[in-house]
């Protein structure tokens, strides 16, 4: 009900039939349009014929046009943009070039996110979409004065500043919109018609009164009327209507001009008074409606001699300010002034209330809960309004209209709201969804108080379960794990069996909490339950989308193949079940890319990345930018492009949107690792101080990455106190929770730490344990990205086990070592290009090995010992290396190698 677009708002009013042609105004509009100004402003009070003029101009201008009639309800940014897009989409019907029927789909997708992307990015996307239109077109925004929202004003200002060349914007309003009009005028970019322009000239007035309205007035009479009304079209029109059929128009005119009364006030009485009584009643009663159709009028009027439809058509023919809103003559509305004046005349509040109730009932029966609510509220029937609000909740929440819903409910008096436990619970949920946790808790407490008052035992349990669940969700958003678990478990106890949806919510809350505490197997189980529940509920999208979280968990458990499988399955299911929403698999493709990267399948990784990037442009997933930039940073790190990596991490940090997935690798820790690789120990140490961590703490999963980073900082400092103990404790926890992925990381860190302390036996033991875990899953990058220190360890490991190592591990280690020397394909094309173009013969693996040791400052003797080579062999290699690099000595060789990106 909230989702469907009201076609009536997009309906281009056809030119009215009985009107005064206004060539001078049309010519002015044509002239400025042809001169290239692309913004036209029609700013005049009500009743100056703005809409009539614009529709006449549109009809004759020979260009495709789109129309949006604005109303108060459009004061919500999302809704405004949705309607703007809908208006643009109507252009597709007019065979305009370059426009797809689903233009604006990208923006619509962005608007579906629970948390809106920045207005700038939405607008940029919108402008890009408009830029694809090849023919020029006009967009009319009618009644812009109803817009009271700063964010929408901002959108309009932005649009005006960056108006695409094919777009001409017409704004009709009763007041000047908040745009830099003075500047636009000065630059000649604004075409304007104001009240003074729109008034009827005496000639036009004469034409209107005598020709169009068929009166036969003398020149004096016409002048008198024109003076009295000051050319105000609405005034002249009402005057004309009241004079039709009068035998003595002059007397009327004399009374009229002799009175001081406000023009409309005087005339409306005349006009109404001369209508048959039943028409008067019709007009009065239907004035409460914003828009009317035959059957709605029938419902509101109850016993009325004629049918609503007939009466509306009669009014249209009689030119009594009724305006059709569609081609089929189904919906109408009154001219604003007319309905305002009619509403004024409503004496009895009780009758008014009854009318609103009837309208509310009709709208409810016709599935328009929004209107039904507003009329119930206007009728003062708050109980009914509450019921309607509760009924509308689910659909509005699913359509991401939570904020609008809250707006409705806040209109109701506090006392009413607080006495309704289920409404309060919904409010608690709504505020929780939009991140206002304080308000959420307030309403949950109101709900509990109301429940206690009601003492209705039967009713209370389901709501209590929901209340606990909302509290769990709030606690989770605040990062309070203990409270989250407490409430999640409580909610599972209280939620009835048959409430699949709610139970699924509880399960997933618990699932995320288990994740945060490192209990990943429990978390996976909860996720699987949740996915099944979602599928039972027919919610394929959620089920498929969640696969990326499942894959994340599997990676932590060290199960790379399982993770790959999960992602592939989900992508397949998406193609089968929801091909129109395939952009949700952006995360999945990214995940596959990173898995391929880990395993050294760079070509595959590049391909997945491309797909992910394409899908990511259209995705609705709220944390896309965060994850994408993190991945990019990781890739840059593998390429040793430290500064780029840092920039990307910053972008990721800024793009982060709070969500239930626990942050296991904080951006600051990630940056610290890059600082260490750059040798910027001071920055790394600054992080340690800022973070306030030490080696002497209880370990917990959420802090694991920070602690491992701390270990590396200490290693770089050369201060090893407490580090081993910390790593042992982390290892114990990871092993207990069977998190192989973590175990691998910790073991490798241990190995490096031992190596740095020259404790080779322990280092190699740790390394061997890690290799045993990584081999079955094909880990590669984890080793390579550690750089030279790791490479040396692997070389040592290989030599030590030359005689006895298991066949599998040896091949595996060789593969890893080979990867150290390979430039990363595809991801870093520039490196390859350099190397190929500037070296006739590339260095062999052995030569690279030696070069690296040279870069470290090792002497030939040291190198020969290291690599178990004869000294002469090493010198021979050196010669060849210098030749290939066209270097004279070690220093030059190192510099050249660095330039070529080899080091």
């Amino acid at each position, binding site marked *: 009900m909230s989702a469907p677009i009201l076609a009536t708002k997009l309906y281009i009013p056809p030119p009215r039939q009985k009107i005064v042609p206004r060539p001078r105004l049309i010519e002015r509009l044509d002239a400025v349009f042809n001169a290239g100004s692309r913004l036209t402003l029609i700013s005049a*009070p009500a009743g100056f014929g703005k809409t009539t003029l614009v529709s006449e101009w549109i009809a004759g201008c020979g260009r495709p046009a789109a129309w949006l009639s604005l109303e108060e309800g459009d004061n919500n940014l999302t809704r405004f943009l949705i309607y703007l897009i809908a208006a643009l989409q109507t252009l597709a019907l007019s065979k305009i070039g370059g426009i797809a029927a689903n233009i604006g789909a990208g923006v619509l997708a962005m608007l579906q996110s629970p948390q809106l992307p920045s207005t700038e990015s939405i607008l940029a996307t919108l402008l890009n979409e408009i830029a694809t239109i090849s023919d020029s077109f006009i967009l009319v925004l009618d009644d812009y004065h109803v817009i009271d929202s700063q964010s929408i004003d901002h959108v309009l200002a932005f649009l005006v500043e960056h108006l695409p060349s094919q777009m001409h914007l017409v704004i009709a309003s009763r007041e000047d919109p908040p745009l830099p009009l003075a500047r636009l005028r000065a630059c000649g970019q604004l075409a304007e018609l104001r009240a003074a322009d729109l008034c009827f000239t005496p000639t036009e007035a004469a034409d209107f009164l005598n020709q169009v309205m068929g009166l036969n007035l003398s020149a004096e009479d016409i002048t008198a009327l024109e003076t009295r009304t000051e050319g105000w079209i609405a005034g002249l029109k009402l005057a004309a209507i009241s004079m039709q059929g009068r035998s003595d128009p002059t007397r009327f005119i004399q009374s009229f001009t002799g009175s001081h009364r406000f023009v409309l006030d005087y005339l409306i009485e005349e006009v109404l008074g001369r209508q048959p009584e039943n028409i008067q009643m019709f007009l009065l009663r239907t004035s409460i409606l914003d828009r009317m159709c035959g059957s709605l009028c029938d419902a509101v009027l109850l016993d009325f001699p004629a049918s609503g439809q007939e009466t509306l058509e009669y009014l249209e023919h009689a030119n009594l300010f009724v305006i059709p809103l569609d081609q089929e003559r189904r919906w109408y509305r009154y001219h604003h002034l007319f309905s*305002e004046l009619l509403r004024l005349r409503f004496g009895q509040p009780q009758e008014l209330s009854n009318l609103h109730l009837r309208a509310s009932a009709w709208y409810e029966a016709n599935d328009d809960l929004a209107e039904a609510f507003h009329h119930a509220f206007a009728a003062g029937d708050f109980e009914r309004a509450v019921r309607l609000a509760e009924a509308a909740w689910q659909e509005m929440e699913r359509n991401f209209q939570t904020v609008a819903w809250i707006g409705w409910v806040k209109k109701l008096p506090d006392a009413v709201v607080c006495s309704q436990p289920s409404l309060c619970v919904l409010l608690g949920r709504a505020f929780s969804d939009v991140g206002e946790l304080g308000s959420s808790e307030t309403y949950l407490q109101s709900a509990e108080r109301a429940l206690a008052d009601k003492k209705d035992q039967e009713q209370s349990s389901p709501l209590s379960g929901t209340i606990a669940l909302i509290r769990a969700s709030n606690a989770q958003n605040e990062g309070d794990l203990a409270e989250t678990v407490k409430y999640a478990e409580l909610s599972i106890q209280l939620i009835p069996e048959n409430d699949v949806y709610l139970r699924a919510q509880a399960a997933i809350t618990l699932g995320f909490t288990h994740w945060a505490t490192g209990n990943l197997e429990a978390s996976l189980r909860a996720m699987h339950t949740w996915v099944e529940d979602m599928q039972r509920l027919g919610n394929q999208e959620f089920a498929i989308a969640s696969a990326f979280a499942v894959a994340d968990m599997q990676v932590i458990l060290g199960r790379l193949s399982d993770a790959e499988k999960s992602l592939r399955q989900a992508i397949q299911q998406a193609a089968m079940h929801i091909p129109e929403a395939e952009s949700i698999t952006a995360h999945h493709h990214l995940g596959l890319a990173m898995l391929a990267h880990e395993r050294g399948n760079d070509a595959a990784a590049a391909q997945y990345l491309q797909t992910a990037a394409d899908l990511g442009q259209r995705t609705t997933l709220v944390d896309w930018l965060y994850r994408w930039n993190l991945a990019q940073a990781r890739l840059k790190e593998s390429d040793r492009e430290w500064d780029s990596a840092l920039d990307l991490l910053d972008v990721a940090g800024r793009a982060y949107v709070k969500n239930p997935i626990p942050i296991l690798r904080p951006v600051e820790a990630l940056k610290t690792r890059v600082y260490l690789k750059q040798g910027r120990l001071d920055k790394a140490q600054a992080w340690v101080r800022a973070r306030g961590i030490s080696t002497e703490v209880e370990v917990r999963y959420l802090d694991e990455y920070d602690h491992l980073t701390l270990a590396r900082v200490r290693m770089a400092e050369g201060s090893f106190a407490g580090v081993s103990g910390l790593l042992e404790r982390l290892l114990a926890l990871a092993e207990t929770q069977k998190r192989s992925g973590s175990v691998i990381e910790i073991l490798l860190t241990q190995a490096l730490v031992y190596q740095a302390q020259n404790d080779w036996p322990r280092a190699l033991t740790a390394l061997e344990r890690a290799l045993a875990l990584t081999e079955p899953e094909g880990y590669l990058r984890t080793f390579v990205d550690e750089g030279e220190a790791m490479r040396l360890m692997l070389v040592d490991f290989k030599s030590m086990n030359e005689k006895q190592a298991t066949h599998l591990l040896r091949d595996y280690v060789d593969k890893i070592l080979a990867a150290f020397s390979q430039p990363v394909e595809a991801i870093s094309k520039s490196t390859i290009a350099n190397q190929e173009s500037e070296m006739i013969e590339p260095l062999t693996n052995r030569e690279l090995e030696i070069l690296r040791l040279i870069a470290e400052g090792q002497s030939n003797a040291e190198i020969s010992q290291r690599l178990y080579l004869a000294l002469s062999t090493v010198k021979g290699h050196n010669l060849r290396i210098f030749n290939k690099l066209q270097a004279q000595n070690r220093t030059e060789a190192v510099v050249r190698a660095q330039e070529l990106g080899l080091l």
Partner: protein
Amino acid sequence: METPPPIYEIRLAGHLSPQWVDWFEGLTVSLEEDGDTLLTGPVADQAALHGLIKKIRDLGMILVSINRVQFNESHPNRSNKEKK
């Protein structure tokens, strides 16, 4: 002690008939000889004032002027100080 709301005098072109009184709730409607209408009365705050102006706009009436009228002899601040 709450300061009473300020009194405003809003001048419109053209006379309004009595039924408008309900619509401009709380304001006194007086018809001037020069053909203007004066609406006088308390307006709670700025938001209420802007709401009124909007109503006037939406009815197509001509807004001539808005004035805030001094209603207290003593300045509100002064009276608070005296209480201390």
